[in-house]
């Protein structure tokens, strides 16, 4: 590795090259048919490992919500803290032990 003068880091946001998903012992899984797309999980994800995506291709709890964005978990970064599971108002996120 080449060290720059003053050991400065020149690439912003480069921790995203280092995936922390392997820290996880429990995996949160969103059940979209129960999800009301309130985005509370996205608000509180500390990574942030939950992304806002276009929601039209996802199952929906109520057809009125189809135009709303959905939360999608990026398992490359999710450390499995479970804040989203605990805060979900409709209990739409399951917490499943990672097993190989």
């Amino acid at each position, binding site marked *: *590795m080449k060290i720059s003068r003053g050991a400065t*880091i020149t690439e912003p946001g480069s921790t995203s090259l280092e995936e922390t998903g392997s820290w996880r012992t429990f995996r949160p899984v969103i059940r979209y048919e129960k999800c009301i797309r309130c985005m509370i999980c996205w608000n*509180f994800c*500390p990574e*942030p490992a939950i992304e806002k995506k276009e929601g039209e291709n996802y199952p929906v709890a109520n057809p009125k919500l189809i135009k709303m964005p959905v939360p999608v978990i990026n398992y490359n970064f999710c*450390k499995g803290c*479970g804040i989203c599971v605990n805060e979900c108002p409709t209990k739409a996120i399951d917490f499943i032990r990672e097993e190989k």
Partner: protein
Amino acid sequence: MNYEDMEFFAPGHRACAGCAAPIIVKWVLKISGPKTIVVNATGCLEVFSTPYPHTSWRLPWIHTAFENAAATASGIDAALKAIGKRDDVNIVVFGGDGGTSDIGFQSLSGMAERGHNILYIMYDNEAYMNTGIQRSSSTPFGAWTSTTQVGPSRPLGKEEFKKPIAEIMAAHKIPYVATANPAFLPDFKAKIQKALSIKGPKFIHTISSCTTGWRHDPSKTIEIMRLATETGIFPLWEIENGDFSKIKITYMPKQRKPVEEYLKPQGRFRHLFNEPEKIKEIQKMVDEWWAKFETKS
């Protein structure tokens, strides 16, 4: 412009699962937007967000020692002024409780007195979590830490009281001082927005749960921070220009929950349940604060 859908704090940082600090940081940056310079005192946040040779920050960021985050920010403010580029740049300082209440307090007090246009945010996890949970002046009464051990001859943990840092900063008569809690997100966002719209030194004290040091399940982070406010232990208020008579309490619980509900889920307070007198003492302290300020609000 609204930057809420942008992430200025990248994933892949090394914060413990369930740490509240990145939640605070991501929301502050979403509100302050891309024209922000971040000054970061030594502490958990600095360590976990910049594991060399990587960084989580997508904004200009400078790391300083514990003592001088506010002094460095003051220098940035003065330098930008000197080159005529001060106008629309936000300078935001993040310091932990150690870097703010303890070691960095002199530079913070100086920054407030000189009137620099800076937003200082203290994320308060109530001990030196990064070096191994040593007590700070911000550790609450009764809490276990690795330097306030609990045993037969010391049943209490920390015997001293938490330093009221936000009230001390309000006593500097700076334009804006507030306490904020990310579990109450709309209130949190409004306070950051309001602080950034005001010129001069601003100070925001946010609670930041530490799953490792507070000894609770990572998934309970937000729940416990919410309880801190609902029990009245961490009241949410704002004071402008140091006028305590016009304190505005921004979250008024209809009925304050008993403090036990906040203490119970945290391992650092477990020993207190053998000392019910001490829990009563904590409840009394909380009630006294509310009796003093509730009527003014």
